[in-house]
């Protein structure tokens, strides 16, 4: 029998997904105001180590997007799907745009963070839902 631990979580990241599912997504802020995503001990911009957890703004804006037709095997049943980078004030996040026809996604679209599940793997996926 294998003792591979397939169900082990990624501390920091899975905690963030748990929080995002409860509408409490967060980021880390250093004294100079640089935002970053977990797991994080050190500000990647300036090296500061006194990071404070702050709530991600409730809404963000799509900065750029693409519709992926050729996915990795982990998303083969999900394609085509829209992937976007959205601005949430001090942090930008990459996610899938859901709840909208992928072909109608546009820059500037206002979205909120959601956590959905891949149709292919049942794994959780950071997503954006139009407000």
């Amino acid at each position, binding site marked *: 029998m294998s003792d591979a631990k397939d169900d082990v979580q990624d501390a920091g990241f899975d905690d963030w997904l748990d929080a995002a599912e409860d509408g409490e997504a967060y980021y880390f802020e250093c004294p100079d105001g640089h935002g970053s995503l977990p797991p994080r001990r050190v500000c990647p911009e300036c090296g500061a180590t006194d990071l404070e957890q702050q709530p991600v703004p409730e809404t963000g804006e799509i900065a*750029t997007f693409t519709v992926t037709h050729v996915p990795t095997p982990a998303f083969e049943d999900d394609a085509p799907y829209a992937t976007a980078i959205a601005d949430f004030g001090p942090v930008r996040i*990459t996610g899938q745009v859901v709840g909208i026809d992928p072909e109608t996604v546009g820059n500037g679209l206002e979205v909120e963070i959601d956590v959905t599940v891949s149709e292919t793997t049942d794994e959780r996926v950071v997503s954006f839902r139009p407000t």
Partner: protein
Amino acid sequence: MSNVRVAGTGLTPFGNTPERTSRDLFAEATVAAFEDSGVPREDVDALFYGNFMGELSEHQGHQGPLMAEAAGIQVPATRYEAACASSGAAIRDAVVRLRNGETDVVVVGGAERMTNLGTAGATEALAIAADDLWEVRAGMTFPGAYALMAKAYFEEFGGEHEDLAHIAVKNHENALTNEKAQYQSAIEVEDVLEAPQVSSPLGLYDSCPISDGAAAVVLTSEAYAEKRDLEAPVAITGTGQGGDRMALHDRDHLARSPAAREAGEEAYADAGVSATDVDLAEVHDCFTIAEVLALEALDIEQVGEGISAARDDRTTADGETPVNLSGGLKAKGHPVGATGVSQIAEVTKLLAGDHPNSTHVPDATTGVAHNAGGTVASATVHVLEEVAQP
């Protein structure tokens, strides 16, 4: 500072040979490089080897000694991994080692076996160059990442898919005379625009192929080249490397590559040249938009203007600064770990007059090679110059 000479170059054909092991590919490239160099194997002091996905495609780690063995050299060997810039990083460290006098002769190379993974498997393997937690698990692929950059570029500076199509057409045209190229076939703008979508706006013909292949060069100190009376008319005179945040969403600017700018500025300063001195360039066009971002980072094009360079014939074979006369990653192929060294080999041959496309650049004396990893979280730039031989 003493220069580093390119004494010999060797490339396998790039293409679709799923059954060939990377050790066999690399052996072929090194046999050709040694033959071209006239350097005996026993003079080599070290191997610098680039490879990205060997664990996934061949279940093989610890590839340095394996590849030294394949090359027939009993030397310390280290594998470099910087995604698609793996062998660019290997070149840089080899140049530094030669310059500081620790050694006189090294082999630098790289190899990648990819097509045995199939398209989906290779797409998955390439994706590990991105942030697994925050990008790959959201469904981002590599074509997807470059598509995000292309959309951001269009939004800020204008341009459209048809502009990018001219880059693919140019690079296919350049590869027609390259017998090692994966594609030796001309395409039209319409072919690019009508090709199946991969990740909008990028389609199949905006993307480099999945390739197997290897590249090797023999580098020596100037003193060794002169003592041995080697025919080595091209020197690596400048080296630079830049780094950036791992995830695309953490870049200050989604349509620029500051790591490549940093690498380029460092390499130009190191060589004592400026962008206006550059006669030709081999840049990392894994996707058509990547060529635009590379040329702007290298100051060969102004920011916001690189999109029209191929369309307006500034970078075509008979343009002001021909770019990717080898066919580039787009048409020559992109066996990831081999690409950085293959660019050095192509620039060397172009400057030495030994390349089928040297006829387009008979007076060229200065070339650059730009190698990028991930969404350009890693970049290396090298300046090569033809040197006057006594």
